[in-house]
């Protein structure tokens, strides 16, 4: 799965952007494999969710496992710019209470 990665200004974090518009059983393994080295190498990872229009339960599971990995090393995982369909699903399964979710990249970067 293609992900674009940029460093934050302080070099400690990474901003990851999806290239595909869905995260489901078909690409979730590739997503985890692609994201794992980034999680390992950074203390803060920000994921730009704006391209995603569809996430299923396996996608939610993958995001949860990323969150667990970051919590384990006391790092931060932030999601920003969720589309309405994805936000609806997050609220439905109450995951909006578990993740740090921000409206925009600027808001996510400004919050420590």
């Amino acid at each position: 799965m293609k992900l674009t990665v940029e460093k934050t200004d302080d070099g400690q974090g990474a901003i990851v952007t999806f290239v595909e518009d869905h995260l489901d059983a078909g690409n979730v393994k590739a997503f985890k494999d692609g994201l794992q080295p980034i999680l390992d190498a950074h203390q803060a990872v920000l994921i730009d969710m704006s391209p995603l229009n569809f996430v299923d339960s396996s996608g939610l599971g993958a995001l949860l496992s990323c969150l667990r990995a970051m919590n384990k090393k006391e790092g931060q995982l932030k999601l920003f710019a969720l589309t309405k369909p994805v936000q609806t699903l997050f609220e439905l399964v109450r995951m909006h209470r578990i993740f740090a979710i921000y409206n925009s990249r600027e808001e996510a970067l400004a919050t420590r």
Partner: protein
Amino acid sequence: MNTAILLTDWDDPQHDSAPLGVPNCLLPFLDRPALQWVVERLVRSGCTQIHVVLGDHPLPIRAFLEEGARWGCRLVYHHAGAEERFGQIMRRLDLASEPGYVLANATRLPFGEDSALFQALPATSSGRAAVWNQDSLTHWGGWGVFTGAWLLAQDVESRQAALEACLLQVETIEKPLLTMPLSAATPAALIESNRRLLSDGSPESPMQRIGRGCTTHPGAQLVPPFLIGQQVKIGFGAIIGPEVVIGDGALIDRDAHLHRSVISPNTYVGEGLELEGAVAREHWLANTRLDTVIEITDSHLLSALPRHDPTASGSGTAGDPWLALALWIVLAPLQTLTYWQARRDPPPRKTLVTLPRPGGAEPIEIEASLANPQSTLQDDGSRRWARHFHQSFYPGLREVMRGRLSLVGPSPRSLAEVRELPEEWRSLYIVSRCGLLNEALLQPEEALFPETRFASDALAQVQHGKVGDTLKLLRQYLVRVMRSLGTRRHS
């Protein structure tokens, strides 16, 4: 005034007229579809013939209304093209110029006292339109009584908003002021309309209506006002209300929180879900706060429940026997391995047990080890899965191939046991075959309270026939069997 014109697809085209998979007028106001309220109101006002103008989604509306005998009126259907002007459609209805016709939008319903609307028109009047005020603006409620001549003369787009702009300017049309009508035009309007209906009684005694045959776990919390339809099941820890309407036959799984929401009939709401300001229908979910509708593809979150039809044959999934045959072949080596693991166990009892079959079909006789698979899971925890596979699951595949059991279904129970179950639980066996696999089988014995078993059987009914769910259960089961193969017998 004995003829009405009912426009079923007449709302603003920028809103989807069927965002939740059915036309908006078929979504519920309390215990029945908005369209039913509309037709009942028209009949009550004296209409004996209704011209039903169908739009983009004609079939479900026609299927619901049928020919009108059950409503006490005659229905005449007309199909209108998206580009047809209002006057063109009216000309096709063969209207006389003088009498008054009741014009009604199928997604709107006058609310409160509305008898002034249906009185006979004076000779000088072109019509009468029920209006309401909001923010110092006057709106038309979508219902009115008009002369045929006036209707035939309106060369406007066939939308309520277009006719509203026109009729509000006409002085010969009376405009009695009513309260805001109920509306199912959007999910947000539907929720608000249901809220108004729920609160229609006195504030001291908010509506708390629970339909026949409902099962509510004692650990669930019901906060009025609410309306719960017939045969609804609500699991442990669920919080229902305030301002919640649940349609007949819905299943609300444990720990789900519903607030200010409308759940359509026969919809499954999964464990732990939170719905606020939402309309759920089968696998569609409208979130009014975010103004979006999504399709949920995970059936364990939100899905359609099979409608209870006692006359159905309950023949199950056509693919089950083939999948069972494939599993029979693929899992043969595992059966050999489990035989070695379980060879010192006492063999299963050879007695026969009578199992019920769906749709009132003749009961079947089946070996006890298949009829009560939990029995092969008793004791000796480390190897019990291998024994279960050897004595219950693998032999059970033969029964699936013969069409006597399903791969996924309610736990096998003897006829006598099923007769002892509560009515709603028993009803699962009326429509579903017993199955080899379900969630209860995979739970530790100490976690299996009656409500967990019931929820599992009801969920199995949802999962039945869905290959994804079958494979998921199968994978979880086989992982347990494989793990137990490596363990040694306790002394």
